[in-house]
């Protein structure tokens, strides 16, 4: 029993409620948000690994008081070792994910508080709510609890889009909700089929029932459940056929909101991908589907990014395209490739947030996001231009930045697994990613300034520059010493195969 594990979810939720309570008291909200956001990455560092049982309900075998009541026909069966309540499991991989999520959340909240004049409002509330449910999705070991928080994330994402007054945000939000209204009941059906076959919603117990043959692993119902859960997964993460709507959602949010939204997608992709691998890895075709979806995501999104003219849309598509690398890592299914995929998840969440907040300064100064109307920003903000360039290099996988390490690991693992084609596609798409990024970068920063463009004289807030520098430091750190993260991800990856 470790109470700190539950606190990772409870603290952001409490803070979200308090932010609502102190509505209109801007100063209080600002201080409260920053202090709590600072705690988000710190708590997991001091939490010891273990399991948390809500309500103290463990298994029948572990609670002698309860098992006196239960007839022997139950205590002698496998039910004796099944978990009764909701269970959170906190291991080294979860620790890394929540620390990364906490850092991104802290910097996004800091930037949003400094770039907007009014601190109080639904925006901070939604950000904290999203972070809380994201932590819960990463931690939870109960597939229905996972569904509940999955829905809360969806609503929080839509809320962040609605609260940012960007043109066309309401239409995108409604579209996303209608698609979500179709996809999440289907995910629920998948969970229901699993529940129907195994009689359980605890993932550890489901895996136990399948592995030990308590249920027939080749049962067609399980295949159907796998298909439905993968469908819901691709909705949550933005894999095809949902890549268009996902990138639209990013581009209709304010940059600091988008930085957090993409972190939610990346970590949902990783967390749910782990669940799918844990339950369905014995089905060979599940990995084939994951690889196919990821390849489609990479190719479709990165080529779509080439054609866009709105820089938020370009980064949105690139972010969705980069998700494909994570999926490929999970789909290849060796210990090394899964480690690489999860490492790529951490890297990508950080780099895309870096890019969104970096390009967000352009939006802050000019109120314009169409690259055809922009230009000459290099003269105004040379330091930020350099930081954004480094972020783009990191995304494309240039050494010594972090995505280089993870992409290298991915390519090596695809070679080791005997699928060199995937490695070639990954290298090619990295080049296209870089090309797309350079196109946007050239248009915004290097080209001479168009006549109609008005650049406001207001200074870029210090908090924004601070966030960018922190992101850069993390990128370089992880690029030089990838062991910091991979050593923590390795145990989970090994346990999955």
């Amino acid at each position: 029993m470790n109470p700190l594990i539950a606190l990772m979810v409870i603290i952001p939720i409490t803070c979200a409620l308090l932010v609502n309570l102190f509505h209109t008291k801007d100063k209080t909200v600002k201080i409260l948000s920053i202090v709590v956001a600072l705690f988000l990455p710190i708590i997991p560092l001091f939490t010891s690994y273990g399991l948390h049982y809500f309500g103290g309900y463990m298994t029948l075998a572990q609670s002698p008081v309860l098992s006196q009541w239960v007839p022997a026909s139950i205590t002698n069966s496998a039910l004796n070792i099944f978990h009764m309540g909701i269970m959170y499991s906190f291991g080294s991989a979860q620790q890394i994910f929540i620390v990364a999520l906490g850092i991104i959340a802290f910097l996004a909240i800091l930037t949003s508080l400094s770039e907007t004049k009014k601190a109080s409002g639904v925006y901070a509330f939604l950000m904290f709510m999203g972070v809380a449910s994201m932590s819960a999705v990463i931690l939870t070991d109960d597939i229905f609890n996972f569904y509940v928080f999955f829905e809360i994330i969806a609503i929080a994402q839509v809320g962040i889009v609605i609260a940012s007054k960007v043109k066309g945000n309401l239409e995108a939000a409604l579209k996303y909700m209608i698609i979500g209204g179709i996809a999440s009941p289907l995910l629920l059906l998948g969970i229901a089929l699993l529940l129907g076959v195994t009689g359980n919603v605890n993932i550890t117990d489901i895996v136990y029932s399948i592995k030990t043959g308590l249920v027939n692993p080749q049962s067609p119902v399980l295949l159907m459940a796998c298909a439905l859960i993968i469908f819901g997964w691709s909705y949550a993460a933005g894999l095809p056929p949902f890549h268009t709507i996902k990138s639209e959602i990013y581009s209709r949010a304010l940059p600091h909101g988008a930085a957090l939204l993409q972190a939610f997608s990346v970590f949902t992709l990783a967390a749910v991908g782990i669940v799918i691998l844990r339950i369905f890895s014995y089905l060979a075709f599940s990995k084939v589907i994951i690889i196919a979806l990821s390849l489609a995501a990479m190719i479709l999104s990165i080529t779509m990014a080439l054609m866009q003219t709105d820089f938020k849309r370009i980064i949105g598509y690139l972010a969705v395209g980069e998700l494909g690398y994570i999926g490929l890592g999970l789909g290849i299914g060796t210990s090394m490739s899964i480690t690489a995929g999860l490492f790529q998840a951490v890297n990508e969440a950080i780099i895309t947030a870096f890019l969104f907040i970096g390009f967000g300064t352009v939006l802050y100064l000019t109120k314009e996001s169409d690259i055809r109307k922009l230009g000459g920003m290099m003269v105004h903000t040379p330091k930020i231009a350099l930081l954004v360039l480094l972020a783009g290099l990191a995304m494309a996988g240039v050494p010594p930045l972090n995505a280089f390490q993870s992409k290298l690991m991915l390519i090596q693992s695809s070679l080791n697994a005997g699928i060199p084609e995937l490695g070639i596609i990954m290298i090619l798409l990295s080049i296209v990613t870089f090309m797309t990024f350079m196109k946007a970068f050239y248009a915004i920063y290097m080209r001479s300034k168009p006549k109609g463009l008005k650049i406001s004289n207001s200074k870029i807030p210090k908090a924004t520059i601070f966030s960018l520098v922190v992101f850069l430091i993390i990128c370089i750190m992880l690029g030089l010493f990838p062991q910091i993260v991979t050593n923590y991800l390795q145990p989970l990856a090994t346990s999955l195969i």
Partner: protein
Amino acid sequence: MIIDSQLASFFTAAALIIIGLYAALFLDNIIKKIIGLAFIGDGANLFIITMGYKAGGIVYIFLPDMTVNWFAQNASYPLPFALVLTSIVIGASTLAVMLALVIVLYKKYGSIKASKILGAKQNQETENSIKGDGL
């Protein structure tokens, strides 16, 4: 009856999901799309409830005059029911957010046709700029 009530209930759930999917995908009116989404949710909930049903069983309430063994063999399975309680509430709240969005969008477009509201994307793409301070 030809089929037992559990199977018939599964068919009802399937019918609701299919009707809802049809409405959500093919009807042009946004309010009807949303009604369709509510039916999909209802169908999924009914499916889960039906899984916990036990023909000839009793409600899962332990009364003092029952023995533990008899109860374990005859009661319906309560776990799915606990899940559906949560799921119903989630469905209702999502529905409320969607309807609120429809009302706001109606003021902008003067129409609730999906082809007008959601199809009007492309011409906005070019003039996508931020409206002001942000929040």
